[in-house]
């Protein structure tokens, strides 16, 4: 049953990723007074770009061609590592640090692709993505600070979140949620860190690195972004959200949670503006600080 639930969870997380993106877009459009595209638009866009002719810029090498596959593979593996139903079979790797390193892997290849496109925007995007990454990685480690204290290991799953919430106390739990939410927005490239809808060169981050991509390669990059969003949202719910008794019920709950968080994301994005690039270090330091505070409250035994 564990195997089945985990496999179905992985398939759903990857398969429904464009749908959750679509939900966020639709909510955002409605909030802005537009009708907006259908929630299934992501699939049409993927299918259309996949069928188009694929070109690569001059002076680029095999690195540019291979980079979307590398990024997508790393993110697919990230989805595999997350225990979607709350528990995984013991033979399944489920290490949290590995997730960090895989995200770094994805960032590395996106950066290389940007540098290999031999234009101005690719380098610009690569530089911004990498700079942002230097803030995200420590902040993410700090956001998980509470988990290190309570689980005493780097695995994601052995700690039932319900139990964890009890032993956490509402204040450290709230701080952990806040810190994780900050990091989530930065890692998935949403507002207020990066605008996923922008096509203005001066403000682009992730969009700049994929500017030269089209056809199948662009489709891969788009799928990668969607999968990343689902993976990181799901990871947050798994360790901070509620937990049900059976794996299948948990899986159903997770889908509901993902839907709720997509709606919340769309709502949040329609209410916030993009931060200045040079303020992002402050933003991420704040995220890390909140995480460290939660960690300290728990490890020193205060505010239980």
């Amino acid at each position, binding site marked *: 049953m564990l195997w089945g639930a985990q496999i179905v969870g992985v398939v759903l997380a990857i398969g429904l990723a464009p749908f959750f993106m679509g939900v966020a877009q639709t909510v955002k459009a409605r909030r802005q007074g537009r009708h907006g595209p259908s929630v299934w638009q992501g699939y049409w866009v993927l299918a259309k770009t996949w069928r188009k002719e694929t*070109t*690569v810029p001059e002076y680029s090498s095999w690195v540019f061609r291979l980079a979307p596959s*590398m990024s997508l593979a790393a993110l697919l593996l990230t989805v*595999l590592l997350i225990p979607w139903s709350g528990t995984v079979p013991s033979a399944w790797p489920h290490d949290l640090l*590995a997730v960090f*390193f895989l995200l*770094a892997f994805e960032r590395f290849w996106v950066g290389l692709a940007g540098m290999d496109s031999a234009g101005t925007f*690719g380098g610009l995007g690569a*530089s911004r993505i*990498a700079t942002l990454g230097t803030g995200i990685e420590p902040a993410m480690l700090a956001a998980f600070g509470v988990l290190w204290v309570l689980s005493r290991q780097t695995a994601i799953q052995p700690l039932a979140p319900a139990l964890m919430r009890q032993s956490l106390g509402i204040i450290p739990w709230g701080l952990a949620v806040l810190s994780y939410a900050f990091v989530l927005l930065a890692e998935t490239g949403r507002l207020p860190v990066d605008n996923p809808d922008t096509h203005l060169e001066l403000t682009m981050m992730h969009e700049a690195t994929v500017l030269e991509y089209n056809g199948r390669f662009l489709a891969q990059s788009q799928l990668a972004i969607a999968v990343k969003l689902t993976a990181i949202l799901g990871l947050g719910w798994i360790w901070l959200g509620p937990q049900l008794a059976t794996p299948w019920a948990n899986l159903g709950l997770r889908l509901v949670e993902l839907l709720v968080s997509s709606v919340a994301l769309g709502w949040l994005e329609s209410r916030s503006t993009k931060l200045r690039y040079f303020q992002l270090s402050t933003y991420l330091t704040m995220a890390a600080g909140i995480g460290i505070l939660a960690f300290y409250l728990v490890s020193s035994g205060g505010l239980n």
Partner: protein
Amino acid sequence: MFILWLLASGFFIALMAPKRFLSLSFTLALSLLLLVFAIWGLWAGNSSFLTGPYLALTPLRAWFMLVLGVVATMSSWYRFGYHQHDETTTAFWLPIFLVSMVGVLTAQTVWIFMTAWEMMSITSFFLVVVHHNRPGVVKAGYIYLVMSQLSALAILSGLLLMAATVHSMNFSVWATTARDLPWNIKSWIFALLGLGFAIKSGIIPFHVWLPRAHPVAPAPVSSLMSGAMIKLGVFGVLQFLLFDLGPTSILWPIVLLTLGAVSSLLGVLYALMEHDLKRLLAYHSIENIGIIFLGLGVMALGVDWHQPNLMTLGLVASLFHTLNHAIFKSQLFLAAGAVEQHTGTLDAEHLGGLIRTMPGVAVGFLVGSMAISALPPFNGFLSEWLTFRGLLSLASRSTGLWALFGLGMALVLALTGALAGMCFVKASGVIFLGQPRKPLPHQAIPHSMTWPILSLAVLCLALGVAPAPMVHIIASLMPGMNAQAAVLLLPLKASLLALVLGTLAVVVAVLSRVWDAREVPRWNCGRTVDASMQFSSASFTKAVRTTLAVIYRPHRQLTRTGPQSQDFPEHLIYHGGTTPTWERYVYRPGYRLAWAISRYSTRIQAGSVRLYLTYLLATIGLILLFLH
């Protein structure tokens, strides 16, 4: 006996220096012999075949011998294709340098250890200043020599202090008796030896020699120095301070951890601002030594607190990273040498697009970049993962400030890892990818230079996919430890992870038909694009430089030229850079002080014989007066 032959053969090979091919072949043979010797030592384990009162090979030493053997073999192989100025000098000193490192690793008494140590310092000095006619090389070599002598001085005092209190010069006696020394003596020994080995490893703030000496040496020498020599400092800390001394004051693990954290973070931050590939790599050596020291600190805490789990974790993390760093750093240095031979420059701002003219080296450099940035499925990922686990278990097993300290160290390591990733996106991107920034003449690279780099890349991958045997070997280096070795890598399942990642990447790449794409011009808002519009090494890191201005203290100067330069400049000349903080605020005052003292001392010591005779008479008079 065998080891004596090994040592003698070094001098023998040195004499063959004028015969190029013969000398290269024998150096390679010697390196291979070292490798065999190391594997034999590890195989024999604690019942080692080489034990004696003067020279001995323990499993720990065999591990470092393995590190040395791997790097030496690949560098010697690489030298067949590497062309440099005044090759005979390198061919003469290199074998002696190798055997002196063997001497350091097998020495069993203070005298042999110090003799070998000094030989190592001096031969490496001669190897650094091979290109002494280039500007700045002799100065770099001189700084290196001074720092080496300071290090040797500290180590000698520490070793003599230990010998005097234990009443033995023999290291095998120390292993059993040093644990019972009084704590204040232990602290003194820790301070002296720690200082000496930290200087030799290039730990910040004792690092000033490293980014100067490593880049000016020929590439095989840089790779040996970065890959093997600075690791002997790690060996010293492990052997004398952690294995022999045992539990010490809790201050010392904190010192080790702090030094490690400072070195790793500042090392990578300085590396990020470098545009010279070899200097960039040299700063990364500092960073990686810092990461190794973080592992050592975790182990030291385990020793102090009598927690075998923490001890094993720290030991495995630091020793595994020692081997891994030796592999990927020598690989990167060799690739840098190939870039230099290929284009004649190492300045990233002039390079670009080398992946088309030297594809093999580019693959090697990319793999090395991924390994040093701790990305799966390569070896650096596993050793950094283990270091993270050590620091996080420190954070989770203790309370209050200790826990905060552990988490802080882990955060520093995470920041270091991210910055290293950024730095290597920059290095590979600017140098190997994109369009060449300047038209440079290209000289073909022989296969004997490409293959060692690629072999090291294969090693990186092999250790990343199947780390379990290595982890098992390291955990058995210290008696009574191998019990927990098997569970160290859980729940990661590194091999499975690497296989799945590789399969996924291949499947996705095949599905998207990566080979089937047409080449079209680049998009730059409709304008024509040229190479200067690409991001350069300086512009790539601009945001970090601005954000961390407090560390870098950047300065820039814009000069306008032409008759109406203020309003219509014909050319803009940009000079920018960062301030070398340690050199300017720590070393320069010390240097000035030394000069001031020597200037004052010329008043009484002016070189006149009559004056000295007067001193002599006065001294004798004084002695007579007091002895009377």
